[in-house]
């Protein structure tokens, strides 16, 4: 046994009366294992900038007032902090423990048990609080970005803060692709934004079968195990943190849009063709843009041509985005404050924390506040045989969502680009929304409520308040029979109450519009209000209630000093109910909280839509969902001489799947693993390699799709939306008698290594990850009555490498340079898919992947350039450029479609360099993504010709012969042609490489350790993020990660951390 205890000899216990005087202390540092002196050990006094280094005999001397804290750091050794005595005559004897032993102390928390790292056969990554709080964020998951090899944030959505997390690629198609999140031993079903990152101690990412299969049928996408902070044995410590972040407003000009001049020219052309006649003659008072109104006024002889042109020219100069940027967007500001207290003794300890987060979002009118409160205690009873641990978490999120978001005109068309929100004198302006200006005016004459829409004035009038309150109570009772065997019972109660209230005041556009539409005007001008004048209060409330319980036997025995067996066996139950209810209140008086009764049954004619009969929307809906699981699990690890480790785990999950026979409700999953710690073999002698451990594992994880059933299922609806008002049912699923659970088979080979006394250390994992019986959509002949069928139809094959290397490049007394390199390679393809989809479906990624290609693939039509005579886009027909679109497109089969590559990068990672000079630390994260493609957006003429505007590429379109040499944007067609649009928009000319390197963030900090006013350490920091792209493959001004939405603006945070 070379196991040794940390021996610290601290001599000099006499209190000195003359402690205020600086004295010189001496000491020696040795290795705890070899007892040999250690040179070049850094010795620092807390709170001072003084750092000294030991000499060749391990000796050091340092001047101090005494009673101060010294920190010893040396690479390959665990850092050590000891308190200096007061008597300089007693030399200090310091023994430092090698990192290898330290590594052995690291435990991996699977959510069920803590296994020492050297007995782990699976693959995982672990982040401690220091790394988690390196970033400034209120969302714990965001702390994982760029920090874990193989964990990717996939952004390709409608909103910058919407992303999905994938661990080692994706091995599912139609089912959830989110990793399972476990908080304090139980799966977390609440909203992750309720968790304050400052309360998190560690996060462990379980990646392969051996690590994750204990979570069985929900582990297929990987598991994120979050452990919150707990009490500890020692004097009370108070930690506080505060920070302030400012983020730039988004660049609204990032998304290209047809300019006002082009927009008006198109409107002129359409007006000439009579396109607007439909709207003009409509009985539904369809709106016309101000430009079209001018053209109409001219046509009707009300204004002269020059007056019209003057008006149009004035409009052409306006760009709505300027006003949007100034009045509906702003720089965002976030504040975060957190404080916690922990302490305790051997028999009991405690933890208390409080946190406040406040954010004023980029969108004016949107803000969010969060308060978190946590308490945890731990008690030992009966000679430490019984352990009781309790924790209580409370979180209150409250948000205001009053920004109108995108402004629309006539339904779903984007507001015309020459709208103004504010005039030259700073007065807010009305814009045309749902109705003709003349109709809006006539409404005022009829003494109806104003029908004007003023986007800026309306902010706050429809006051939308969303929020949630979460309570989590977690208790565990552990009884230790003896050294080897203990039994634990755990229970968690989780309740999450959400609300989404919109109080549309009487003055809000929403209320005015609804009240007006339900008003009846009699021949004598008398008004009858079917919706009373007053506010309209729309309320939605949700309640999530979860009970989780677990009984588990733990066994851990070491015999003959060389055999160790660790085993758990247990059962677990989960019962989660989600209820949502909503309703509307009319004639709402917010002062007295009263409302008035409304006739919800009688359909009334809508004032703006003559002849349309609509009932007053009651807003009533309710749902009740239930999710239940019953599971049995076991995990056994046998280790011989701490060199050879074998592990096995098995789990059976059952759930209340609907309409599935009882025996089909469950799925058994298992894994096997082995590890060999080569560096502890007697024969292993290397000067370079000081640590080498091989791991291998094999097994199955699962993924649940609870939406399907073996029988035909239908969904009830109360009929209030149906023309007949009769309750009705909609078929959800055709029957699927052969439905099975999805499984993911993972084989993992891993190496953990340390070189040069662990100066360079790292982990490499190579894996295969195959999805089996994945549920996917099969396009169906619509003649059958369904268009798609969801069933176990796909298999995927993936493989990859995760690599993480930590290198201490320069270590000297005053300067440290440290590099962390994360690299992930992942390639996956659909090895089998039970159906072929159409070319369109592959191009538009309609959810059906192609056999032999990645799940998320970018395909295109072969581009034959523009027709030099007409500027029409061309494809290939029998190898010859052609514009017979019907034939070109029908001639393209899934086989001869061009495949560019995956939409998601297959090679990605980060490099983080940290430089510490004395008390200053600078670190920067550079992230990179390679090997993926994206489709650039461009002009869709169907939208242009239906007066919906379009992409700014319009101004680059082919207009005359020769333009084809400088542009690939087709000419404007004379008639709608879907095939022509699609041939261009899905052609290879719009596909771009996604490769890029980005400066993700930079952090600069200043840390001091001082005993001033009881402060133990203080850190001041600045953190800048979203700093932009360093290099990208595409020559277009598009950030490949945000190819259809403006990226987040740069942000900078300032903060401090204080412990005392």
């Amino acid at each position: 046994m070379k196991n040794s205890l940390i021996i610290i000899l601290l001599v000099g216990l006499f209190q000195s009366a003359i402690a205020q005087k600086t004295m010189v202390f001496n000491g020696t540092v040795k290795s705890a294992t070899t007892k040999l002196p250690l040179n070049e050990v850094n010795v620092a006094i807390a709170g001072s900038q003084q750092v000294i280094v030991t000499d060749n005999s391990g000796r050091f001397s340092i001047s101090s007032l005494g009673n101060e804290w010294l920190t010893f750091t040396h690479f390959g050794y665990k850092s050590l902090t000891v308190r200096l005595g007061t008597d300089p005559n007693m030399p200090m004897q310091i023994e430092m423990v090698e990192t290898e032993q330290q590594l052995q102390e690291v435990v991996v928390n699977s959510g069920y048990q803590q296994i020492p790292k050297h007995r782990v056969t699976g693959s995982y990554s672990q982040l401690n609080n220091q790394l988690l709080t390196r970033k400034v964020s209120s969302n714990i998951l965001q702390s994982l970005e760029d920090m874990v090899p193989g964990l990717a944030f996939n952004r390709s959505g409608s909103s910058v803060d919407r992303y999905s997390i994938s661990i080692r690629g994706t091995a599912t198609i139609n089912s959830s692709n989110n990793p399972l999140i476990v908080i304090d031993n139980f799966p977390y079903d609440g909203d992750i934004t309720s968790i304050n990152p400052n309360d998190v101690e560690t996060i462990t990412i379980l990646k392969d079968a051996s690590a994750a299969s204990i979570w069985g049928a929900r582990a297929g996408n990987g598991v994120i195990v979050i452990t919150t902070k707990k009490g500890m044995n020692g004097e009370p410590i108070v930690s506080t943190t505060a920070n302030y972040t400012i983020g730039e407003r988004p660049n609204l000009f990032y998304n290209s849009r047809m300019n006002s001049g082009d927009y008006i020219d198109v409107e002129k052309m359409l007006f000439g063709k009579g396109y607007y006649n439909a709207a003009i003659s409509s009985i539904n008072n369809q709106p016309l843009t101000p430009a079209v109104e001018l053209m109409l006024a001219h046509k009707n002889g009300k204004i002269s041509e020059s007056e019209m042109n003057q008006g149009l020219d004035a409009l052409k100069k306006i760009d709505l985005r300027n006003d949007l940027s100034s009045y509906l967007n702003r720089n965002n500001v976030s504040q975060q404050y957190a404080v916690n207290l922990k302490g305790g003794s051997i028999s009991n300890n405690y933890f208390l924390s409080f946190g406040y987060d406040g954010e004023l979002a980029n969108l004016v009118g949107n803000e969010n506040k969060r308060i978190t409160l946590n308490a945890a205690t731990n008690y030992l009873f009966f000679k430490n045989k019984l352990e009781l641990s309790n924790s209580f978490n409370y979180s209150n999120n409250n948000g205001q969502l009053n920004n109108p978001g995108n402004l629309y005109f006539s339904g779903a068309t984007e507001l015309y680009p020459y709208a103004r929100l504010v005039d030259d004198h700073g007065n807010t302006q009305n814009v045309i929304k749902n109705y003709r200006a003349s109709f809006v005016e006539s409404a005022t004459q009829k003494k109806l409520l104003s029908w004007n829409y003023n986007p800026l004035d309306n902010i706050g009038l429809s006051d939308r308040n969303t929020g949630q309150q979460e309570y989590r109570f977690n208790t565990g009772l552990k009884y230790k029979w003896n050294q080897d065997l203990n039994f634990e019972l755990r229970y968690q109660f989780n309740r999450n109450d959400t609300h989404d209230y919109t109080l549309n005041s009487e003055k809000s556009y929403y209320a005015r519009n609804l009240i007006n539409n339900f008003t009846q005007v009699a021949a004598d001008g008398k008004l009858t209000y079917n919706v009373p004048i007053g506010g309209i209060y729309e309320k939605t409330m949700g309640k999530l209630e979860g009970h989780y319980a677990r009984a588990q036997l733990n066994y851990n025995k070491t015999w003959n000093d060389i055999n160790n067996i660790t085993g758990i066996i247990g059962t677990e139950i989960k019962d989660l109910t989600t209820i949502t209810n909503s309703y509307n209140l009319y004639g709402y008086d917010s002062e007295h909280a009263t409302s008035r009764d409304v006739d919800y049954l009688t359909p009334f004619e809508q004032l703006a839509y003559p002849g349309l009969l609509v009932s007053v929307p009651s807003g009533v809906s309710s749902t009740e969902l239930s999710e239940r699981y019953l599971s049995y699990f076991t995990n056994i690890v046998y280790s011989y001489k701490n060199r050879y480790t074998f592990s096995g785990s098995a789990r059976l999950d059952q759930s209340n799947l609907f309409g599935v026979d009882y025996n089909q409700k469950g799925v058994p999953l298992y894994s096997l693993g082995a590890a060999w710690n080569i560096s502890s073999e007697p024969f292993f002698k290397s000067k370079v390699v000081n640590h080498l451990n091989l791991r291998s594992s094999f097994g199955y994880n699962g993924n649940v799709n609870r939406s399907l059933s073996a029988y035909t299922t239908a969904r009830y609806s109360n009929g209030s939306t149906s023309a007949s008002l009769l309750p009705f049912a909609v078929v959800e699923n055709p029957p699927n008698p052969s439905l099975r659970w999805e499984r993911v088979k993972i084989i993992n080979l891993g190496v953990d290594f340390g070189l040069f006394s662990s100066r360079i250390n790292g982990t490499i994992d190579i894996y295969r990850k195959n999805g089996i019986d994945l549920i996917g959509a099969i396009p169906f002949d619509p003649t059958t009555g369904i268009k798609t069928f969801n069933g176990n139809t796909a298999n995927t094959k993936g493989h990859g490498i995760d690599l993480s290397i930590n290198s201490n490049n320069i270590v000297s007394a005053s300067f440290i340079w440290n590099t962390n390199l994360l690299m992930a390679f992942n390639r996956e393809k659909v090895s089998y898919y039970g159906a072929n989809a159409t070319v369109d479906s592959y191009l538009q990624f309609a959810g059906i992947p192609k056999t032999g290609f990645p799940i998320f693939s970018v395909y295109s039509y072969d581009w034959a350039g523009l027709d030099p005579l007409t500027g029409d886009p061309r494809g290939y027909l029998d190898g010859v450029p052609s514009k017979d679109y019907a034939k070109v497109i029908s001639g393209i089969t899934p086989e001869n479609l061009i495949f560019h590559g995956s939409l998601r990068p297959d090679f990605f990672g980060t490099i983080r360099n940290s430089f510490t000079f004395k008390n200053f630390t600078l670190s920067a994260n550079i992230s990179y993504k390679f090997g993926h493609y994206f489709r650039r957006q461009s002009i869709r003429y169907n939208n242009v010709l239906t007066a919906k505007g379009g992409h700014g590429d319009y101004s680059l379109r082919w207009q005359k012969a020769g333009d084809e040499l400088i542009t690939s944007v087709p000419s404007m067609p004379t008639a709608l042609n879907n095939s022509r649009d699609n041939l261009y928009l899905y052609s290879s000319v719009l596909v771009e490489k996604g490769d890029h390197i980005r400066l993700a963030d930079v952090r600069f900090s200043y840390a001091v350790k001082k005993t001033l006013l009881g402060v133990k350490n203080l850190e001041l920091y600045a953190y800048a993020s979203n700093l932009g792209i360093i290099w990208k493959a595409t020559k277009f001004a598009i950030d490949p990660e945000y190819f259809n939405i403006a990226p987040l603006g740069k942000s900078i945070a300032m903060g401090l951390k204080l412990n005392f």
Partner: protein
Amino acid sequence: MIKKYTQLLIGICLLSLFACQKDFLDKKPNKALLIPQKLADFQALLDNITMNRVPDLQHIAADDCFVDDGGFSSLDIISQNAYIWSQDTYQNIPIISGWNTPYSQVFYCNIVLDGLEKIKDTETDKVGMGQIHASALFYRAFAFFNLLQVFAAPYGGGNENSLLGVPIRLSADVNEVVPRSNLKESYDLVVKDLERSIELFSTGGSAKSRPSKAAAQALLARVYLAMSNYKMSKQYASIVLASNEKLLDYNLLDSTSTRPLPNPLLAVNDEVIFYATILDLTFTGSSVVCIDSSLTASYGNGDLRKPMFFRKNGKYWSMKGNYSGARQYFNGLATDEMILIQAECLAREGAVEEAMANLNKLLVKRWKKNQFVPLTAINQKDALSKILAERRKELVCRGLRWSDLRRFNLINEDKITMKRNILNKEYQLLPNDKRYVFAIPNDAVILGGLIQNER
């Protein structure tokens, strides 16, 4: 001793988790879900208003309405192509409601029919079961009939065995491969199902969106007319009229109102036997779609139908609406259609006077009081021509004109060539043109292996 107790305690704890497991896992994951197996479930499936929708393609392609260049440009692509009878109607747009909706109806009906088969021995409410059984047969026949009008050649040329009909799916099994039946088999099934449903229906339906015995008889009259089987058509029209001859008196309605005709689902409209509407895409709702000028000109001065059905739209007239009482165009079954069928069949038999008398029964309710002069005919041809003219005026925008055009062209009556003029280009559709049969959507051809129609 303590050890023993603790072991016992653990044992109990573990057992308690197992004990409740059966019930525990039987809880529904979503309370709104159901597995259709009871009569109420089947009724709910059939009450889905999608069951009361019919294709729009045949209405767009017929000659009830027209659009000018500007109006044309505001239509969606499929409507544009249907309007000018393009060869490639769908331009790779995948969802073709004209095909998908009726087949979705067939699927719902088959779920109900398969489900009834399973409970037929145990269900005690035989009357309710019969009513639902009859309804499912009715809806399925209605769907097949509507599909046959759009996607198959007209019936009555004598070559029905060699022409293709539509796939006749009789089971809810989505994996079953069903090719297109021939035209005769297709119509035979429609007739057979309707006959069976007439036997099964006890009495009238409670809501106009639900079929009834009279609805099945009326549909059969419409089907036989489309098959040019005037004898049977008249027989069923007469049965319907024998039990209910009620007509709305247009003199009692306010023609100045936006939608003067009452909505049969929300108000009383005794003339309507069964409610159905044409799919409501851009064409049916658009204000630029005007009614054929020669048709609007043919309404007499005291004819109240003109102000009830149409509103003045610039130089032309646009549709206000008909028996849906809403924006949607009615395609359901009503007494007026039965009278017109009866009159037409009588005229074709040569019973001129009886035919005209029947026609006048309808017109008297349509004309201003005191201004109506009963129509007379000098011979069979005159009678037929007058009856068909009234049929056109009465059933405008009911989605029936296309079938009539196909029928008239096939039986060598007054052949009609339709013409459109859009963006200085003239389009025409000659009698019996191949484009009188719409193409089957690509997805159905590729995935279902169906034989495509030539166009």
